[in-house]
């Protein structure tokens, strides 16, 4: 049996404690900015990337203060500082190289597995220590290899497939997922990798061949949605439903955006779906390109204009999975269906609202009828 990719990258078998120096350290203003308040030094500034990619443009003065903190930290240590580029994960997905390691202070570094890189999430405090030392220590996790078999049915996406996988595999917490999906493009892999670690897997990484421990049959997948989950700490245990079970549920707002719904591939798909359709009166649709590059491509292809004519609101490029104050939020008693990654109470507005995560297809279909 071939050595799992993570064991090759970290140079040690599962169960071994290893110290390594990440190739990349990622700090964003999602939650990881707290790391820069802790860090007293930066050992290897050239490896650090600071992205201001949440809360763009700033929805409150405190967010602006965070911008200042990150900017000043970057200046002090000579670190690359990025803003107005869109989602850091999506930008880095096209920069990291297979076999590289990125450690970030967020929750979805696994997306980089789509490019054959190892993305590891740590807490802001851990990230601060890594910034100071340049190294990190981890117990190499056990790998679970999964073959993605077949092709996605019409209207079903790799997000649905990831959610289907999570409903069928409850024992993956702490494990490294090695995904064999040669038939998928980078975008499909990235959505799958970012979603499939939502219940606690260590990370995910894609490869083209190998011997699987498990198989996910795509022809058995249907539209899926993650339901509301109460507190943020409960996100990993948020309920997952077939959309068919939610059919007819009233929805006031929809959002496609971020790296799981706002890439050019997603925007093209959504554009195709709105052709000849009308936005339901009383439904608010936000379209948030994942990156400024996606925004430009969508403009050049006429997609942004189509969305404007459809009645959608085009938001700034960035990571918009959590927006407590800013464009696209929902109010008391309202329900939002989004391609974003969070469904806890208040993640997209007031606490007494409801959020579902679902695919681009499900969001756009909801925009026709104002219901799931």
């Amino acid at each position: 049996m071939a050595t799992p990719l993570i064991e090759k990258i970290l140079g040690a078998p599962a169960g071994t404690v290893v110290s390594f120096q990440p190739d990349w350290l990622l700090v964003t203003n999602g939650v990881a900015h707290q790391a820069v308040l802790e860090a007293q030094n930066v050992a290897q500034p050239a490896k650090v990337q600071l992205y201001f990619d949440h809360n763009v443009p700033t929805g409150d003065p405190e967010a602006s203060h965070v911008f200042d903190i990150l900017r000043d930290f970057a200046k002090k240590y000579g670190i690359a500082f990025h803003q107005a580029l869109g989602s850091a994960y999506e930008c880095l997905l096209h920069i990291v190289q297979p076999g590289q390691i990125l450690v970030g202070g967020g929750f979805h570094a696994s997306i980089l597995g789509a490019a054959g890189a190892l993305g590891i999430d740590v807490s802001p405090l851990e990230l601060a220590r890594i910034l100071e030392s340049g190294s990190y220590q981890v117990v190499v996790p056990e790998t679970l290899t999964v073959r993605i078999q077949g092709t996605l049915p019409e209207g079903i996406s790799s997000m649905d497939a990831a959610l289907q996988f999570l409903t069928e595999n409850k024992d993956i917490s702490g494990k490294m997922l090695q995904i064999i999906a040669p038939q998928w493009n980078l975008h499909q892999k990235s959505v799958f990798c970012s979603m499939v670690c939502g219940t606690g897997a260590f990370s995910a990484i894609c490869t083209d061949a190998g011997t699987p421990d498990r198989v996910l049959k795509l022809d058995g997948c249907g539209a899926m949605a993650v339901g509301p989950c109460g507190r943020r700490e409960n996100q990993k245990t948020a309920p997952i439903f077939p959309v068919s079970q939610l059919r007819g549920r009233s929805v006031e707002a929809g959002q496609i955006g971020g790296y799981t719904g706002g890439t050019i591939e997603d925007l093209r798909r959504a554009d195709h779906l709105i052709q000849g359709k009308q936005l339901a009166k009383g439904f608010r649709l936000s379209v948030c390109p994942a990156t400024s590059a996606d925004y430009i491509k969508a403009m050049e292809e006429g997609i942004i204009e189509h969305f404007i004519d459809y009645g959608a609101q085009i938001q700034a490029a960035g990571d918009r999975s959590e927006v407590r104050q800013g464009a696209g939020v929902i109010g008391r008693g309202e329900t939002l269906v989004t391609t974003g990654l969070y469904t806890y109470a208040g993640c997209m507005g007031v606490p007494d609202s409801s959020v579902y995560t679902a695919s681009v297809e499900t969001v756009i279909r909801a925009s026709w009828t104002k219901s799931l």
Partner: protein
Amino acid sequence: MEKVFSGRIWTFGNDIDTDTIIPGKRGTIPTIEEMKKYAFELLKPEFGSTVRPGDILVAGSNFGCGSSREQAATVLSHNGVRCIIAKSFARIFFRNAFNSGIILLTCDGIQDVVKGGDIVTVDLEQHKVSANGKEFPVGAIPQNLFDIVAHGGLIADTKRRLAGGFQPEPHKELDDRERRRKGFTLAEKILRKNAGVEQVKPGDIVISHPDMFMIHDIYTPYLLDTLHQIGAKKIFAPDRVTIVFDHCMPTAVAKNDSAHYDAGLELAKEYGIEKLHIGEGICHSLMHEKKYARPGCVATATDSHTTTYGGAGCFCSGIGTAEMAAALITGELWFKIPEAIKIVLNGHLPKGVLSKDVILKILGDIKADGGQYKSLEFTGPAAHEMSMDARFTVANMALEAGAKCGLFEADQKTADYYGVPLSEIDWVTMDEEAQYEKVLTYDVNELEPQLSCPQGVDNVHPIREVEGTPMDEVYLGSCTNGSIEDLAIAAEILKGKHVPETMRFIVVPATNAVFKEAIRRGYIRTFIEAGAVICHPCCGLCCGMPYGLMYDDERILSTANRNFIGRQGTKKTLSYLCSPAVAAATALTGVVTDPRKL
């Protein structure tokens, strides 16, 4: 109603704006009872919790300047304030306060002898106020306004009129020959034509029949509630009403905005209003873009910057929610014929100097109350050389001088913009026989870019005095400077260049049509490649919504129309206003930069 009463005094200075009375960020709280707690929260945080029924405010000049938000009056009314004594009042607040049942008295002198907590006695019959053993005369209250207060405010007054079997008066506008009669200012010409009154002079009250009413989404819940309070089952002319979702759309303040959205939909449905624009852009830009506000016509809206369409020779002025409700029901709206100031713009604007610089220069000269309840009327070669977009910019900001309206003459450009023969609108021109309170003359050849500096629109300085000031954020947009012409000016400066990595540059086209045209012309691409963030057309940060709010001591340079304390961030945020050319040049360098030097 009592004609003699006493109350405990709260003192205030000059230029107390509506943002200070109730901050913009509190303006979308759905109920006045909740909102009233935040009255004066930035200036006198204790006010909301300690004000008592019957208290009286004593202030300096220009009290209530700024936006049209009726809540500035209603939060005071709901807090029990029954009377405000000031040297002068801003015009929309003046109407709103009476409509809310508050007596306003103009008085110059009492301010020097009282302090907070003193007791003042008001004698309406004797036209005097007294405090600390001294008496001061006060101005008389127009009878129609006194009646509104005596009847318990405009809502009660309108209910009373309806209960009395109100029927709209037959209305006939002046014919073409009569509207061409000379000897009138632009405001007089349009108001007399609309009201069907042959002879008018400043100070006369005329009953107009507005050709278009506009409500934006800040006020949809309050307007709907007011119409329900009055018991209105229908409105006078639904086809003359436009609803625009632009301040709260995209919904951005979670606890409030969806209520405004829902109320807008309900308002449209219940009263048969079909001109409904949801997230299509800023109301004032749409009003002329959609040709709803037309030359020679009268338009009104629940917003202070309603003056914008004066760029096309439309008499347009903002009103509050209660007044809008009453006007929608009756189809009538009273106006006092304003005094007028003629502003002659000679010469030609140099490259890099724009119409925004012209109006900022004027504001700096005449100050925030220099046009109080007046019609500012623009003419001269430079006025006629201005594009329609440039004229709308000037008219938009005429309000910041307290003006009732800011009017341009209708000319061939106006006719072309509206697709009408010039002969249809060429009566909207100035004539020598008209009586102006004064004439201001500017030679724009020598004008340089101007900036309004913290914290007041009329704190205007030429760019040479501000050049080099570091900026943290630049905002290009608003109904003042979010047109395709404005974006073109900025794009030309930014083409192929990039702003500093730490500069936040936010671009918000004024309307969907502007947005799409900017995409087609490549401007949006230019901005994104330069490092900008693009937001969907909306009012955005201009009205303090969460589209780039700033922290203490940060500096923002904006093409918007107001830099009141706290409007674009905290009360310590430093806010500057400028033209799109200065904005683009500054975004590029990170410090205030003269576009003529690039």
